[in-house]
Structures are given as C-alpha cells and as structure tokens.
C-alpha cells in the first residue's frame, strides 16, 4: 500500500510543478514526472508478491506469475509519452526563438 501512496504523491508533485513553475522547460519536466508516476502505477498493479516472469513452465504448474498485461501497456504508454515530450520540447524551442525567454509571465499575447 505504501508504494501506491508514494506513487500518487509523485503524481501530485508533478501536478504541483505544472501549476507553480514559471519556466517552460520546468513545466515540461513536471509533466514528465506525472507521466512516470502513472507508468509506475501500472507496473505496481501488475506485481504479485513472489511472482516470477510469466514464461509458462509445464514442469511446475503451481508457480505464481506476475501479470504481464500492464507491462505491455506501459511499453506502449512510454512510446506515446516520448512523442508528447518531443512535441512539447519542439514547441518550447520555437517559443524561445520568438520571445527570447523561457518565462511564462512574458508569454501572454492571447487573452480573453
């Protein structure tokens, strides 16, 4: 249970960073922290105490295996997260070239 709570705290740390940081790159890093906490959560729900890698062994039918499905999901989600982060960093670089700053308080042309 402690692991789950730590994982949720990590999510909230990321959310706090997104809300309070003023630097564009730090916002991107905070988003990555949120992302990682979600992946960690997926890995945790597939874990079974004393389980081994799910390669079925006919000689020993009573072996306990961990759930392989969340691991497959996490691999897909990591690839998606990579694409999101790359897209965000590309936009941040373009924004820096336009405004000459990473400070979010200076970037406020859109209002209303």
């Amino acid at each position, binding site marked *: 249970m402690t692991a789950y709570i730590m994982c949720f705290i990590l*999510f909230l740390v990321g959310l706090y960073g997104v809300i309070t940081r003023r630097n564009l790159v730090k916002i991107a890093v905070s988003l990555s922290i949120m992302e990682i906490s979600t992946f960690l*959560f997926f890995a945790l729900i597939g874990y079974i105490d004393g389980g081994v890698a799910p390669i079925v062994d006919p000689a020993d039918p009573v072996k306990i295996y961990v759930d392989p499905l*969340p691991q497959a*999901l996490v691999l897909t989600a990591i690839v998606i997260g990579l694409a999101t982060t790359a*897209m965000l960093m590309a936009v941040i670089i*373009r924004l820096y070239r336009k405004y000459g700053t990473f400070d979010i308080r200076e970037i406020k042309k*859109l209002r*209303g």
Partner: protein
Amino acid sequence: MNPLIPLLVVIPLAAAFLIMIVGRFIEEFNKYFALLVLLLLTFISFYFLCTTGGKITVYKVGGWEPINSIPIGIYMVLDGFSVILVCIINLIGLLSAFYSISYIRRYTAGNYFYALFFLLIGGMNGVVLSGDLFNIFVFLEISVISSYALVAFGVESNELEASFKYQVLGGIASFLILFGIGFIYWKAKTLNIADIKSAFGSSSDKTTYLFIQILILSGFGLKAAIIPFHAWLPDAHSSAPSPISAMLSGVFIKAVGIYVIVRLFFNMFIISEPMAILITILGTLSMVIGVFLAIGQWDIKRLLAYHSISQMGYVVMSVGIGMILLSRGVKADIASLAICGGLFHLINHAAFKGLLFLNAGAIEYTLGTRNLKGMGGLAKSMPFTSATSFIASMSISGIPPFNGFFSKLIIIIAAVMAKFYLLAILAVIVSIITLASFLKFQRYAFYNKADDTKDQNIKEVPFPMVFSMVILSVICVLLSLLVFPEIRHAILTPAIDILTDPAKYSRSILVQ
C-alpha cells in the same frame, strides 16, 4: 466479423505515410490523393450508416477468439452510436480537405499538413470504433498529438503559445485518463468495455468506483472543454488553420470528448444519480458561461470557439437529463427523448460549426484579418460566403426551419417534460443570447458599410472553398429532416437504444 471496420483506421494511417513519401517526388500529389482517400472513407462510413441499423458488429483484431467467453483480443465495435460519429468525422474531413486545396496556399509544407490531417482522422476513427479502454487512449493520443502540431502549424508567436497551453492541459488530461484506466484494470482485471461492465456490476467498492468516475470525467472533460476545463479551447481553436479549426471544433471535441464520456458513463459504469447530476450541472455551466464569454469577443474565430463550448453544453446537459431519469428508473421515454435531443444537436453542431469556421477562414483569406471591427460590407463582394454564413448563423441560434431549431426544441421539450424548468428556461435564454451574438457577427462582417476606399479588390474566394461551404449549408438545411419520425427512427433510435440499454450492449459483444 465485418472485415471493413478496421479499414476506417488503416486507410488514413497508410495515407499519411504515403503522402510523406510520394509527396516528395510528385507536386500536388497530396491534395488530390487526400481527396480521393477521404471520398473512399466517407463512402465506407455511409455504407455502414445504411447497413448497421440496430446491429452491433464486432471485429476481433488478429482473430483472437474469446476463451470461456472472456474476451482476450482487441475488439473494434461498430454500433448505432459510433456509426453516426464515423459519418460526421469523415464527411467534415472530406469537405475540410476540399476547402484546403485553395486555403493551404497560405502555408508552405503541404505534405506535413495533409499527413497530420490524416493522423487526426485516423486517430478519431480509432477512438470511436475501439471497444477497449487502452485502445481508446492510444488512438486518442495519436489524434491529440497531431492536433497539437496542427494548432502550431503557422509557427507564429500566437500559434505557438496556444499550442503550448493546449499541450500542457492536454498532457494533464492524458495522465488523468491513464490513471483512471490503471484503476479500472486494477479493479476489474480487464480492459474490454463490455467485460468491465459485467465486472463492475458485481463489485460493491463505492469509494474506488467514485474516484475512477471522477478521474475519467475530468480527463475526458478536459479534452471536451466542458466549463471548468475550457481554458485551452478558444486559443487552440482560433490559432489553427481554418479547415483544422472546423475539424477541431466541429468533430474533434465530440469524437474524443463527448463521445467517450457518453459511451463510458452509459455503457461501462453503472449510472449513479450523483454523477448524473454532476454531469448535468457541468453541461449547464458550459452552456451559460460559454455564451457570456462569447458575447464580448471581436475576433471571429475566438467568438466561434466560445460558442462551441456553449453548444457542447447543450449536448452534455440533455444527455445528463437522460442520465438522471435513467438512474432514478422513471420516465424512460422522456430519458430517450432527452438523449435523442443531445445526439441530434451533436450532429447539427458538427455541420454548422464546421461551416462557420470555414466562413471565418474565407473572410481571413480575403481580408487578412479576423477582427470584426476591420471588416464590413462583404455581403456584396462575397455573396456565397455571406449567404452560407447567414444559414449557419441562423442554424446555431435556433431559428426555424434550420436544423439547430429542431434539436434545441427537442432538448427544451425534454427538459420541461422531465420537470427541470430552470434548465429549460436557461436553454431558451442562452439561445437568445446566441442569436444576439451572431447578429452582431452578421452585421459587422457583411452588412455594416466600411469606408469605400479599400473595397475595390475584394472578391469571392476560389471555387473549392465556395463549394465546401455551399455543400455544408445544404447539409445544414437537410439535417432538419431528422426531426421526422421515420428518418429519426432509422438513424438516431439505434444509438439511443444502445445507450439506454447497457446490458444489451455488453451481452451482444460478449457472445460474438
């Protein structure tokens, strides 16, 4: 097993790759190839619309059959509700692509534009067709990432700022959704929507269940821009190129936001009264606050974007009324009337909001400005744009005999019959304010006489843009035919039946 179902996802993805490769060598390949592919997709989706009816068709990817009637493969499900969304996506996509033939000359890098456009279409088709939660997430991310890129397509400072805001909020939404999916898998040990329904039916863990519902509602609510989550929408939708704004506002927020919320809350979760009331309140708030934010806008596309929030509020509110009645288990016929009004308004909104964004794009194309104060007297020089935008404005503000009138009428009648008098009155008031706001748009853009000096060289936009706008305005008028019982019975009733009878949905998927 219908082997045509995955084509709706595979063809756009393949087209995106082909455009990037072949488009490098052949000039103008992208435009005509895109049209051809979208024509094919529209044809397939209308074929589905004619043949589906009340049936639920399942395609199992890779041919993985269920073991002991537990689904283990990836399911793609086509039913009465998703077929409506598929038709909207591909039809508006076709008309936007036709419109882009001329419009895209303002931008360089046409190949990238069309490749991203097809990723957007393929992702949305995937969201609407997929039958399990994780694939909804994957296809959602495909379409959302391409929409981030398309919003920033102009790479000016405004576009980049809008895209950054959109990406941060969209990222938070994605992780909330992923967290929710993780919780659902933890509790139900399955990801298939129909199977989750039966797993949740027996569980009694109320707290976790409520937490999951809140996570899912806030995640998809951010994608759908329901009011407390709306901050990104006006920036993103007004900064994108106009055909993309038409896609984002007309289709995207419905396919990845409203559709998923409605599908999951009706067909996956067991409808509970507190959640139904929460959804209705959120819808009402969007409806009222959206229109008040819209009325002070002078930028055409921002004005239209705020109206999108308000009109989506109508849909969410009427679906919410249906949910409240269903959860109380009373007046099932009024519940289906309310859901019918919501779905009807969703279809109508795709037509008229797509058309309005194309009009705004045409005005921007000729004048180079989006500010209402800088235009005027366009009715003479741009007759087609003026006429079609008049039809769209009258539709969105609910003037008979256009389509918006009938769907708003059904929503209001359902609210009165369900004894939610306050909601009915609010719906009428919001409709009147919408009318005022669009009369302002009409007057300042088309009728108010500007100074004669700069009027000389304004002429009507090129043929492809005019053609798309005229077709969409014809659709706006034709959609009011859906109010007749025979046509409504053929198109809307299958969708309503699936939503009001979730047991039938999960049963007919699990036995196939």
